């Protein structure tokens, strides 16, 4: 298995990855642009783009900002409202797996920035039906979250005639270097179908076996091409114009707006995805089964590239977190109405045969239990492309829990959200 000589991504990355003659991955190469580009100039470019979208009549919003309350939401809203001076409409898809902490963060975001927010909560029974279908078809319990998060802002843009959607970081740019920052990639239905939705559009879920019909997928349908054209909808990504550093950005948001952090099961990052019971838990465990790596690898690679973490410490973190069992599986199974055996059986259908095999006891075993065992023999080539550290430690902060007495152990579908 080929592993990048600089970060720790392997050739099995589901977004695809390429390696150059030095054995460095496309993600690391594009990341180098972060230290080469004139970000001041790029920010001016962003200002120019959004200037055109300012509403002149006072009868509508300037743009749409999709938010979840976690994962860069604060930074995006901060940039759009307080730095660029726009009047955004916040749009949220209710992912159903909300933690109390997530509800608090979202409410705090809405109040601190004093903005309008529009939320879509799909009927839980429909969501469960769809999740059963997507789990069977592609081994994903998160399809509906990603589908909802990526389509609802576009639907709102079309409905309310707000042509500009401002997203945070483009995953393809940030993780695997699918595009250069200079390409200024924009939101496309193509990327959404292929990478976010794992090749399955809402229409592809209609299936008698899963009991999903046309009426169940309405909320996940992408608007027609003609509708997108009539309004002139564009979705731009801030990381093409701002030097993206999720950790530093979250820390600034903690200082400025009291963003609350929390412990996560399968990664050391305490800032991203704290709003969800499943993301760095059951969903990430599934990712490990399917692709042989988890969110911790994404976070380690990011921190190596940002020169806060050494390759060696990164490997330690990957070993520590990758094999961790999810804590919230029982809760998920209760919610969806599935047994643990049923869950395991379905998941086994989606194990990547390049990574797993059945041993003589008919148990699943990793073909390559320690992908980093050849590190010593590759030392000279690794040294050649190693980045010098700019910070000695890569420490993620914990903030004070704003509701310490509450036992956060149930999905909160709709929550009041703010506690003094």
């Amino acid at each position, binding site marked *: 298995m080929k592993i990048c000589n600089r970060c720790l991504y392997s050739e099995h990355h589901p*977004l*695809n*990855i*390429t390696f*150059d003659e030095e054995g460095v991955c*496309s993600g690391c*190469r*594009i990341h180098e642009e972060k230290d080469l580009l004139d970000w001041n100039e790029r920010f001016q470019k962003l200002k120019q*783009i959004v200037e*055109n*979208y300012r*509403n*002149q*009549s006072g*009868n*509508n919003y300037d743009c749409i900002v999709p938010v979840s309350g976690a994962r860069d939401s604060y930074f995006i809203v901060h940039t759009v409202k307080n730095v660029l001076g726009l009047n955004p409409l916040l749009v949220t898809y209710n992912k159903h797996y909300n933690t109390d902490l997530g509800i608090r963060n979202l409410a705090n975001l809405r109040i601190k920035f004093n903005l309008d927010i529009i939320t879509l909560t799909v009927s839980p029974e429909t969501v469960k039906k769809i999740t059963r279908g997507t789990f069977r078809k592609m081994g994903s319990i998160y399809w509906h979250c990603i589908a909802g998060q990526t389509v609802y802002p576009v639907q709102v843009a079309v409905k*309310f*005639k707000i*042509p*500009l959607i401002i997203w945070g970081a483009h995953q393809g740019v940030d993780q*695997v*270097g*699918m*595009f*250069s920052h200079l*390409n*200024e*990639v*924009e*939101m*496309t*239905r*193509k*990327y959404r*179908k*292929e*990478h976010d939705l794992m*090749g399955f559009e809402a229409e592809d879920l209609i299936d008698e076996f899963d009991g999903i019909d046309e009426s169940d997928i309405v909320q996940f349908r992408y608007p*027609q*091409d*003609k509708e*997108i*054209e*009539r*309004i*002139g*909808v*564009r*979705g731009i990504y801030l990381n093409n114009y701002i030097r993206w550093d999720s950790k530093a950005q979250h820390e600034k948001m903690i200082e400025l707006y009291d963003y609350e952090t929390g412990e996560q099961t399968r990664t050391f990052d305490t800032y991203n995805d704290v709003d969800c019971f499943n993301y760095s838990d059951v969903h990430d465990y599934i990712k490990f089964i399917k692709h042989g790596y988890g969110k911790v690898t994404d976070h380690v690679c990011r921190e190596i590239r940002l020169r806060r973490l050494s390759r060696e410490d990164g490997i330690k973190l990957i070993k520590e977190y990758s094999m961790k069992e999810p804590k919230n599986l029982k809760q998920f199974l209760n919610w969806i109405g599935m047994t643990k055996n049923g869950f395991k059986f379905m998941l086994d259908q989606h194990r990547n045969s390049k990574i797993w095999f059945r041993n003589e006891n008919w148990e699943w075993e990793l073909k390559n239990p320690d992908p980093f065992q050849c590190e010593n023999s590759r030392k000279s080539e690794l040294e050649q492309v190693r980045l010098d550290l700019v910070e000695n430690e890569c420490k993620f902060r914990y903030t004070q829990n704003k509701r310490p007495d509450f036992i956060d152990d149930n999905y909160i579908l709709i929550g009041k959200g703010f506690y003094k």
Partner: protein
Amino acid sequence: MLKKRIIAVVIVKDDIVVQSIGFRKYLPIGKPEIALEFLTSWGIDEIVYLDISATRDQKQPNYDLIRKAAKKCYVPLTVGGGIRRMDQVHELMSAGADKVSINHMAYNEISFVKEVALAYGNQCVVASIDVVKTPSGYQVYDYTKKEATELNPADYARRLADNGAGEIFLNSVDRDGTYLGYDFDLIQLVTNSVHIPVICCGGARNASDMVHVFSKTNVSAAAAANFFHFTEHSVNVSKSIVRKSEIIRLETHANYNDNDLDSEMRLTKKDDKILEEMLFLRIEKEII
């Protein structure tokens, strides 16, 4: 007069679509079948699918992958990469290709071009030429050896045409992924030397480069690879620009006729009034 064509090039390396920059840096885009599906639905005229690793790794074309991708492609599909024998051409045609692109094999054995043309007709043979600019002028480039050959592109194109090539796919290696615009001198050099259609490729930043190349040269089709991946409806938007000065086909529902674009050919906002008109049905206030 034949309509000018806008062609998307899908560059496939190790079975994934990539952005190619200068024939040496590759960025991973995704699956060929998704690329073909969306390029088709966005109204592209033709697709050229080039597997750049097959010949280099001495592999066969990946027929299964091409078959899967061709299912979602409803426009003429040219497939290239790894073609050395006639049976491979047969297999590609049955996998869904409408034409084959021959590069390395034409250079090594020009009679192969004739053989394919005899079996399937000249229209089926797209002879592909990679060109570099050297101090002594333009020269045909051998991408497997990564070096320039002695061949002059104009003479070589003429020989290919004489041997039955139906079209020339002319690629500027120096401009690949640079966004500096097409190499007009090179294109003019080749179009002037042959009577068959020439497709130009390499260097397009956006549709304005296509407008320029059609106005300044006799090229039949403008091809681009990378920039079609960057934005929603990239093809219909590009075509709406080219259509202002050239006769081309644009049959998609979303035609972008009424949308304005900035200097980089990205959409700009429609007037607030127009957007407001679309928001609700306007009824005059009733005064009693």
